[in-house]
């Protein structure tokens, strides 16, 4: 048995208590009741039928009539996956360079001389970049999509833009934090060897933060795939589009096929990133 009392929780305990209290408050303000958790009537039938279909995902269309010339169900599924991945990849291909540039400018280390004086324009430039990033990040990709839909109509390019803008902002913010928190001893050593500030940054600072930055980018790609799937609810023919269509038509087995495909994609990403993490650390 532990001889001493456990370490006093202090602030952390207070924060925990505060969070719980906030939760209780939220519950009351939302007018929720536990009765709302029990599905009734028509909804409970939907729930039962949906769950029953879980073990029998569709391999073919469930509709009794399928117009001639429609591609086979597996082909539709694959086309949806293809489009989902393509949107995500395209969005990341824009977000990554943009995020890097903005991330550099938003970091404090970029503007400092590694212990020296920051250049005069620095605070203004840095904070305007941080403001821009905050603006980009705080609008959800679905909201960007909705705004672009209103402005441009249904347009695959605006779907890609809708994902890239907030993702670039998030990447920039995370990159700038990683750069600011990276160990600076190598940068100092390069400065001592006479390297210019740019080289000190690129070859002394960025390499220290690079493994984390790469891991986060990979994670962002996985998120982009999910966001791309959800865009399907807004008319773009990604996984979400077909899933919604099948659900509205009560073809629950088809819905489960799409869900399993989504699981498979995410599990593949998990396995891949796990393997990468081992290589980077070992």
């Amino acid at each position, binding site marked *: 048995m532990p001889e001493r009392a456990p370490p006093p929780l202090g602030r952390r305990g207070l924060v925990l208590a505060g969070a719980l209290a906030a939760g209780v408050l939220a519950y009351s303000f939302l007018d929720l009741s536990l009765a709302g958790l029990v599905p009734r009537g028509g909804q409970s039938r939907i729930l039962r039928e949906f769950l029953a279909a879980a073990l029998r995902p569709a391999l073919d269309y469930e509709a009794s009539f399928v117009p001639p010339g429609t591609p086979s169900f597996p082909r539709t599924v694959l086309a949806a996956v293809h489009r989902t991945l393509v949107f995500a990849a395209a969005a990341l291909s824009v977000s990554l360079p943009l995020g890097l540039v903005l991330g550099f400018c938003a970091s404090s280390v970029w503007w400092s001389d590694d212990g020296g004086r920051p250049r005069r324009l620095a605070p203004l430039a840095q904070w305007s970049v941080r403001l821009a990033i905050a603006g980009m990040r705080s609008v959800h990709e679905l909201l960007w999509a909705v705004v672009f839909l209103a402005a441009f109509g249904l347009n695959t390019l605006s779907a890609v833009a809708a994902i890239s803008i907030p993702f670039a902002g998030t990447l920039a913010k995370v990159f700038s934090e990683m750069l600011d928190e990276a160990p600076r001893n190598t940068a*100092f050593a390069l400065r*001592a060897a*006479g390297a210019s500030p740019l080289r000190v940054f690129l070859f002394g600072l960025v390499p220290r933060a690079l493994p984390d930055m790469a891991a986060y980018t990979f994670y962002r790609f996985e998120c982009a795939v999910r966001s791309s799937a959800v865009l399907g609810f807004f008319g773009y023919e990604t996984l979400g589009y077909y899933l919604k269509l099948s659900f509205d038509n009560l073809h629950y087995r088809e819905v489960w096929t799409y869900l399993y495909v989504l699981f498979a994609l995410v599990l593949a990403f998990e396995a891949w990133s796990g393997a990468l993490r081992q290589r980077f650390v070992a």
Partner: protein
Amino acid sequence: MLEGIDLAVARGEVVAVVGPSGSGKTTLLRLLNGTLRPTTGSVALEGVDLGALGPRALRRARARVGFVHQDFALVPNLRVSQNVAAGRLGQRGFLAATRSMLWPGARDLAAMHTLLGRVGIEEKLFARTDTLSGGEQQRVAIARALFQEPVALLADEPLASVDPARSRDLMRLFFEIATERGLTMVVSMHDLAVAREFFERMVGLREGRVAFDERTSQIPQARFDELYRLAERTPGDA
């Protein structure tokens, strides 16, 4: 932190700087290589006042002084070749510098290989730096400093992370290299015994001031004892 320092090191001379922790040894070294500016007075390298130089000239001056840092300051996930190549980043055009880090040319590789051989780890040329032991990483740091082709070499507590059995070997290596290349060398150290054994001139620092600056043979034991004596006014401190 440092006060009243008046120090001159001649070309080719080898000096040890000793003193308790916090006495200012690292600060002194950083002043010598121009990464720290004195608040009063000046630091001159080869007769040129570092304080009067513009940024680009200052960088060129720094490139002439190699520095081996206490914690090595290497990038753990890069290869040894890339860490060593970083030593010349201050001396090349941007494209050449980038190339040397990513795809080093044959001449660079040969030079690095020779240097690593000189410090005893030639086979580690392409190894990942974090797979090396502490002592081996120390040698990579030395190789990086030498890759600069400096006229002077500064080392900040190089024996701190080395076990006592190896300290003398490492010191011997430093001395051989300094002699071969005619380097001026200033080494800060904690270990008095090794310092007295190898160095002919020693500078003692205590609380930011120079306690002594003489030829080793002429420093009585009492001066060393006094250097490391605990300060009287704060009895509770270590």
